[in-house]
């Protein structure tokens, strides 16, 4: 079997990056960035999530494209759920 085996060093590096991201997002929460507090927090969270998916969940090395297709589909439908719901709720008071 041609299974990709990542080195322990890589796993530890990703682990350290995730801990660093946690520290950063806590520190950023105490700085007043106005509306950008939310954007910075979500950007750091998404970066951490991508690291977990690519390296811990081995998607970077997945030899079949179906896994990637499934993930993109999940994100796409999640965004439809959030965006179309907000398109309704956020505009109800406009008239």
């Amino acid at each position, binding site marked *: *079997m041609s*299974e990709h*085996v*990542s080195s*322990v060093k890589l*796993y*530890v590096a*990703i*682990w350290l990056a*995730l*801990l660093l991201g*946690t520290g950063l*997002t*806590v520190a*950023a*929460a*105490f*700085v*007043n*960035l106005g509306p950008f*507090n*939310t954007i910075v*927090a*979500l950007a*750091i*969270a998404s970066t*951490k*999530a991508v690291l*977990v*998916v690519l*390296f*811990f*969940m081995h998607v970077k090395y997945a030899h*079949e494209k*179906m*896994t990637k297709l*499934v*993930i993109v*589909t*999940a*994100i796409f*439908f*999640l965004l439809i*759920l*959030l965006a179309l*719901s*907000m398109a309704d*709720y*956020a505009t109800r008071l406009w008239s």
Partner: protein
Amino acid sequence: MHTSPAAAANHEAHENPALLHHFATAEQQKDAASFGMWLFLVTEVMFFGGMFCAYLVYRYWYFGDFGAASQSLDIKWGAINTAVLICSSLTVALAVRCGQVGKQKAMVVNLVLTIVLGMAFLGIKAIEYKAKFDEHHIPGQASFHLEKSIPGHPDRPVNQQHAQVYFSLYFAMTGMHALHMIIGVGLFAFLTYKAWKGAYSPGYYTPVENAGLYWHFVDIVWIYLFPLLYLIDRHP
């Protein structure tokens, strides 16, 4: 003459007892199991997505009240729990790697460490829940009271109904996440027993890998819950 897939399967079945007869190769069997797990995780994304959507709508409507309620959470415990979960994701990833390279003892150690870290997370969550009960921040409680004003408006007290919506979502989302953690700890307890008995080898460690995918997914849910519930309304 070409070797038929059935003949190839028969040949491989002798080498790998874990290979089921309706799969041609062990690789195909593993891909099918992994694909099924990913499809399950998609349903989990939509499951948690519904709650994230409710959070988004109510945060938009009751923005100030959500900010005040969010500030009542203890950032210290939230941050420690995030670190604990990240450590457990590392031990899971290392356990799967042990499966790939056939290190049975190290796999058992990593699985036990994962269980310990998972329990630590749940214990810290229990401390946080206990504090919420002590402070009367339980939605629906007759004595519910959040003694705070809207952030940036010291003269405007919090709307108690709206604050309860925040805590309803807080308990629903972290509670559902905790339930997933409890299921995960149970899965890893079972896998530890099987690994200790020597059920997994480089030729077959699919259950460890799929439980790992589940655990990493639960980790990702927390990676989003932590900033949304604890952090984004914290700034002065």
